[in-house]
């Protein structure tokens, strides 16, 4: 009896575990609103006739499980939103877009196998990474070798675009964002002494490199530097050291989870220095988790919520309407990746060469949430404005926009 009961339990467990495991699951084309999400009451039924050609498949991957799932979900939601808006407006020259999505669980190896799947089984025409730098770096060579265009939405590690001529970036290159950070600290905050805290991964290390390179030029003195691990929850020992070093500014790379912990613990410990972050902080989650401790924190980011651009405001309101939560930088970048890819396919067709040609010809593109995008450089990096935002009254607001080509050109 006991044996049977035990066996039954193990089997039940195994089944449950397997069914819940982060296996890649393709989602159906997102023309219909998701049953779990609030339906869109005001949208008129689709006006366009079903096109003669089948849907155009574009691949997408992001972490939907694991510790970075919140960002992955945000990116995926925004990509779906973009596809829906594009299809509602008639698709790509009449053909609807279909988003094929997989979960990379935040793991590079899973991202690489997902990339293969998108290419081989799903036969997508191009792909978008809604993933972090690590997984994106793993997937990029797979697309490059298959001769397929991949856009990196918000992964900012320099190596990603260096993989080859098929890999383009939407977000601001880490070097540029780091540079903007140093510019901001020196020129706007008029600070001298800086402490640097680096999250020990592709994202943090490349940002810090960019920051330090420019810091020398603008006369900043780096008086303290330390790394910490992804997911760190206890910055207290580091904060004690920073207090002793007494900098004007702490330039701390990280994501909103670490950042909210850091700023809260810094406030608790009575650290007075201004904390400057980057786009990793850019999420309503940061303000929600850090509460009042987030007030006054300044970040560099791609999303300017106070922008007057029509598409920015449209994205922000449509996102809120569709998902009943505020959009973030990650989402805006994924949205823009779909917008840019759709533009390229409209003008250049759906072949890789056509897409690349169209991307290279992109000029002053405003159909995006984080634009305007001036052009692509020869290294397939966008020349684009970089925003800095300050938390005020529980929301991100424009602090300063950086458009000086001397600073923002990759």
């Amino acid at each position, binding site marked *: 009896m006991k044996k049977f*009961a035990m066996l039954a339990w193990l089997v039940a467990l195994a089944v449950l575990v397997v069914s819940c495991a982060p296996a890649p699951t393709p989602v159906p084309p997102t023309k219909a609103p998701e049953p*779990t999400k609030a339906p869109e009451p005001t949208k008129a039924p689709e006006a366009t006739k079903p096109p003669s050609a089948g849907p155009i498949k574009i691949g997408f991957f992001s972490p939907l499980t694991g510790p970075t799932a919140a960002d992955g979900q945000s990116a995926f939601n925004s990509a779906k939103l973009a596809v829906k808006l594009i299809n509602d407006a008639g698709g790509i020259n009449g053909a609807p877009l279909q988003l094929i999505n997989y979960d990379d669980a935040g793991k590079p190896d899973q991202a690489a196998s997902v990339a293969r799947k998108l290419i081989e089984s799903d036969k997508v025409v191009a792909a978008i990474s809604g993933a972090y730098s690590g997984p994106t770096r793993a997937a990029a060579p797979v697309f490059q070798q298959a001769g397929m265009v991949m856009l990196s939405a918000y992964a900012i590690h320099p190596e990603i675009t260096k993989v080859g001529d098929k890999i383009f970036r939407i977000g601001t290159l880490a070097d540029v964002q780091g540079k903007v950070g140093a510019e901001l600290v020196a020129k706007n905050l008029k600070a001298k002494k800086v402490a640097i805290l680096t999250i020990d991964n592709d994202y943090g290390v490349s940002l810090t490199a960019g920051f330090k390179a420019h810091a020398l030029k603008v006369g900043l003195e780096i008086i303290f530097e330390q790394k910490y691990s992804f997911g760190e929850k206890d910055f207290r020992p580091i904060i004690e050291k920073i207090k002793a070093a007494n900098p004007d500014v702490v330039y701390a790379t990280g994501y909103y989870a670490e950042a909210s912990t850091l700023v809260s613990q810094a406030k608790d410990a009575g650290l007075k220095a201004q904390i400057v972050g980057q786009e990793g902080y850019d999420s309503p989650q940061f303000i929600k988790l850090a509460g009042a401790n987030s007030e006054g924190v300044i970040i560099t980011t791609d999303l300017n919520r106070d922008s007057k651009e029509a598409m920015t405001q449209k994205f922000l309101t449509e996102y809120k309407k569709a998902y009943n939560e505020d959009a973030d930088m990650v989402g805006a970048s994924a949205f823009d990746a779909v917008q840019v890819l759709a533009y390229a396919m409209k003008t250049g067709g759906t072949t890789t060469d056509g897409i690349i040609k169209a991307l290279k010809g992109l000029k002053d593109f405003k159909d995006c949430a984080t634009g305007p995008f001036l052009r692509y450089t020869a290294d397939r990096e966008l020349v684009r404005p970089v925003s800095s935002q300050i938390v005020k009254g529980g929301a991100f607001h424009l602090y300063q926009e950086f458009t000086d080509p001397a600073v923002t050109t990759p």
Partner: protein
Amino acid sequence: MSIAQNLSNAMVLASTYILIAIGLTMVYGVLKVLHVAHAGVYASGAFVGLGAFNFVRPFCTPTLEDARLASNLAFWISLPIAMIVSGVMGALIYLLIYRYTWGKSPTISLVASVGLFTLIQDLLQKPFLLGPRQQPYPAGGAGMPRIETPWFMITPTQVLILFVTLILLAIVYVILNRTRIGLGWQAASLDPEMAAAVGVNVTHVIVLNFFLGSMLAGAAGVLVGVYDNMVFSTMGDVPSYKAFVVVVLGGLGSVPGTIVASIVLAVTETFMVAFAGSLMPRDAIAFLVLILLLMFRPRGLLGRA
């Protein structure tokens, strides 16, 4: 200033390690099972506490116009709820799983445990429970005072953690060392078969054991959730292995050893991060300490030979 402050911070960190690891060491003591799913109970405790907190707070608000007081009251209601639910969860884990795997190959229990841990995390990540995002647990210090001395400062939340840990340890100490069932527990952890032969209902002892240990883990989940102002589905990931380091370091099955090991580990981590800088990630420090200790003292700090 800095050393005293680091020490006091380390003691708070140690308190959270203690609460998580004691349950694990108690389970190991009796069952000799590596109860990985304990970290799932910890995350669930935080989830239940947060749920109770968010549920109760609106009811507290109209009676207490001071929002701070309302949130303090909500916290003190949410903590015991989380502890009881976690305790029941732990007891059920034993009754539904380990009772059947116990005495079989230890790998079976381990596999079941790892599977269960994954299952709990995946469930917690479902949108109708915690969802993929971190949720704040804004209970602050729950009415505890701030302690300021010329050498160090203890925030109200830190006072809260120290206070709750001390009380819970006292309760567990009394149950294990002063009551009849505690003697039965000690007997069962030394030799379950023999304990039965002197009339101890080993099943009762083990269920109690799981209940107490899981209750502490639930409390730890709540306290860490408040300390970091963050509750999320994968918050058990780091504790799932770090608690093992603590338990092995302290000597498998030794409750006092677990307490000492938690303090040793928290202090080492804090000072390594403070003075050795970026040398290595803090979780690697835990394993380094473990390896070093096991080289010189294979049975752990206070373990039985």
